């Protein structure tokens, strides 16, 4: 696919918190990552406000397992409380994702050089991402590696369909929808032989408005275009 990358992300633990268990603070992970969690990982590999990262598909490689831990979360008022968090254990996912230009940002139109962005993305992936990767929650460190999507043996090969019920898909932010509000998207995913094909964010059947929000402003003054950067590197003595 155009502008696509394929990679594997893995880690010892993952916590894709089910929002229902978030209210009281006894977090329990969803059985599979949300779209937003994977999107965050793609954005950690390489991101610029010019781009929108779209996750097409993931493949769950390992059996879904859980492990609980006693945690001492910090309270706003100071001090600690006690809670049990339940993590996914020993996770490995293959991901196929691509980027599109964010058309809600005409102010960054000068930065839309598709080929260059794609190559930066691929190089960033090879280096293990530009920012550190985590699986759902900050304490669950993850690692990315390029791979061929669908290669290798997965636990759910030939397993059939698993219905995952109603899940959070992700959060809509104003700079990607053009609407000045924050929204939560929900959908009903199905996992077939370990593969989950994600609906595109705008195709999600349920959208719940949370609150008003304005996008952050970007322009030539606080974003450097790829072309400028390229010219600088070629022209300067850095290389």
């Amino acid at each position, binding site marked *: 696919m155009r502008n696509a990358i394929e990679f594997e992300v893995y880690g010892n633990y993952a916590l894709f918190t*089910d*929002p*229902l*268990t*978030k*209210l*009281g*603070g*006894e*977090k*329990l992970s*969803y*059985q599979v990552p949300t779209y937003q969690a994977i999107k965050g990982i793609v954005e950690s590999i390489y991101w610029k406000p010019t781009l929108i990262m779209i996750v097409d598909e993931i493949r769950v490689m390992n*059996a*879904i*397992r*859980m*492990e*609980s831990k*006693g945690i001492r*979360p*910090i*309270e*706003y*008022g100071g001090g600690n*409380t*006690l*809670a*049990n*968090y*339940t993590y996914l*254990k020993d996770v490995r996912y293959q991901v196929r994702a691509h980027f599109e230009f964010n058309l809600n940002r005409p102010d960054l139109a000068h930065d839309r050089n598709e080929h260059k962005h794609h190559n930066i993305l691929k190089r960033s992936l090879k280096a293990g991402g530009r920012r550190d990767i985590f699986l759902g929650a900050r304490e669950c460190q993850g690692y990315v590696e390029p791979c061929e999507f669908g290669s290798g043996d997965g636990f759910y090969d030939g*397993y*059939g369909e*698993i*219905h*995952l*019920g*109603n*899940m*959070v898909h992700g*959060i809509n932010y104003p700079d990607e929808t053009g609407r000045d509000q*924050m929204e939560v998207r*929900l959908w*009903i995913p199905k996992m077939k032989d370990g593969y989950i094909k994600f609906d595109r964010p705008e195709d999600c*059947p*349920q959208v*719940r408005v*949370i*609150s008003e929000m304005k996008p952050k402003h970007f322009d030539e003054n606080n974003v450097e275009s790829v072309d400028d950067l390229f010219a600088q590197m070629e022209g300067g003595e850095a290389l």
Partner: protein
Amino acid sequence: MSWLLNLYETYESNLDLVGEIETRANDQEFTLLPISHTTQNAHIEVTVSENGEFHSASVIDKKDASTLIPCTEKSASRAGKVISPYPLHDKLVYVAGDFTAYAGSGNEAESFAHYIKQLGDWANSSYATWKVRSIYNYLKKGCLIQDLIKERILFVDTDKRLIEKWDKKYESLYPEKPFIFSVLAGGQESAFVRFNVRARDIEKDVWDDQEMYKSWIDYYQNLLGDEDICFVTGNRQPSTDKHANKIRNAADKAKLISANDSSGFTYRGRFNASHDAASISYEVSQKAHNALKWLINRQGKIIDLRVFLIWGNDDLNVPDPTEDTFAIGPAPTEVAAKRSFTNREYAQEVYKLMDGYKSNLSSKPKINILVLDSATTGRMAVLYYRNMDKEIYLEKLKDWHTSCAWLHRYRKNREGDFVQFYGAPATKDIAFAAYGPRANEKIVKGLMERMLPCIVDGANIPQDIVKSAFHRASNPVSMEKWEWEKTLSITCALINKTLKTRKEEFGLALNTENDDRDYLFGRLLAVADVLERRALGDETRATNAIRYMNSFSMHPERTWMTIQRSLQPYQARLGTKATYLTKIMDEIASKFKVEDFNNRSLSGKYLLGFYSQRHELYQKKENNNDANEASGEE
């Protein structure tokens, strides 16, 4: 699928059991509650006639007190001084219009006002049944306590106030202690009253009447809050922020979903209010929680307040992964153990066992495994959740029961006799094998949770568990004989399972070809044990082999010298009877490679050698000699 959705679906597929009262092994009653209902212990039963006149009243015996009552969101979680009446049955302070005349400090009139208004709204709605109207017509007169005193249910002192606590001084008024004081924990004014209606024919009791449940549920549905997307089903339904407690037992305050935690870093940051983070519909919350409570009562296992629950969505009864093979199907494992110990035959028996469960595969064959516990009193967490295909589940269970199998003798059959069975041990027994019989319950529950993935996913058994069991099994002098035997057979099962994952499995049947050093050392120890035991005859003291087992496992060569030295007098005593055993010993010793016969400490395999060799010798004896003698020796 999410755990809440599965609980909700379990409720929906068991609708025919709603309100049906079942009893647990300890005679405690439980039921699948209808939504918007809860249970309370009532003390007084008041019957009114159809046209709203007082008919009769009685004090309810404690056995019969549990009553299914309608409730509102608010009343279900009322506490302290909050005025929030239940819709129909409630305490005297709410239901009696003349309460202030007989008790209290005079500020309680408001409670009744709230109650009667709420009941009136229901009675005048189109959802009401004639029973509700009859009760309302009687209660709005506000003469309940007066009637109850007349009926000699409640008792007043000389000032015409309700007696708070029974005292000898009231004997002048009432010669016998009234029954009401023996059912109540507090004063008379705290009595809970339930209402019934006397009808022409035999009618169902008000609290046992499906029509009444439906009437309240339908009426209450209209009073619910705003609609929102339900995160569980995805439908737009009236949502709630009050969720059930009392999940594990009646005194359990912990909630699975609590919504008032604004003081921690739980949802705050991106979201301002808990409602922003997630919403759940009233119906789903009620049904899922009711189904969960019912399932826990029905088939849950609670260890130190940690709940282990396994159920099928349609067919509730499925084999429990934490149980041993004997508990899942005693008959086949017993038969298999007697007849033969080849693994293939045994596997076939387990296959048959699982087929029994597989035969009733329904259209949606799903298994749920849920573990719950709370770290603090107020909140409860899901510690483990798996939702898997029933067929795969049974397959995994079969793998577990065939691969972690050994011959055990610690179970009793229905007649109370110890029986041998070949199979996998229960997770609880594994905990006792690894940590001792006095292991803290917290440790037991932790181990049970850690063992679950080993069983349902085929994950490797954590090495610390196997090691701990191994060290305990190598130290027989630290425990009683029966306990050591139990520890030994369970440890053998664990070690064999660990070896199996490395494709190094040893069967229970003795392998005379094997020249693994540890295995051979184990066999030597077994022969030494059997020889000395035979020489000891009726004496029950521990043999040298057993007493030196611990040091043997650490320094086999050196300790073997000690053991062999101390064997000599017994060999002499047995004379020619020892020839057979001595010959075996020589045979084993000859199998050693010279460089292997050293002091390097032994691995778990030596226990397998020990067990198999000892088993083999007793088998032989049983075949050759009198069976009684053999069992006496064992």
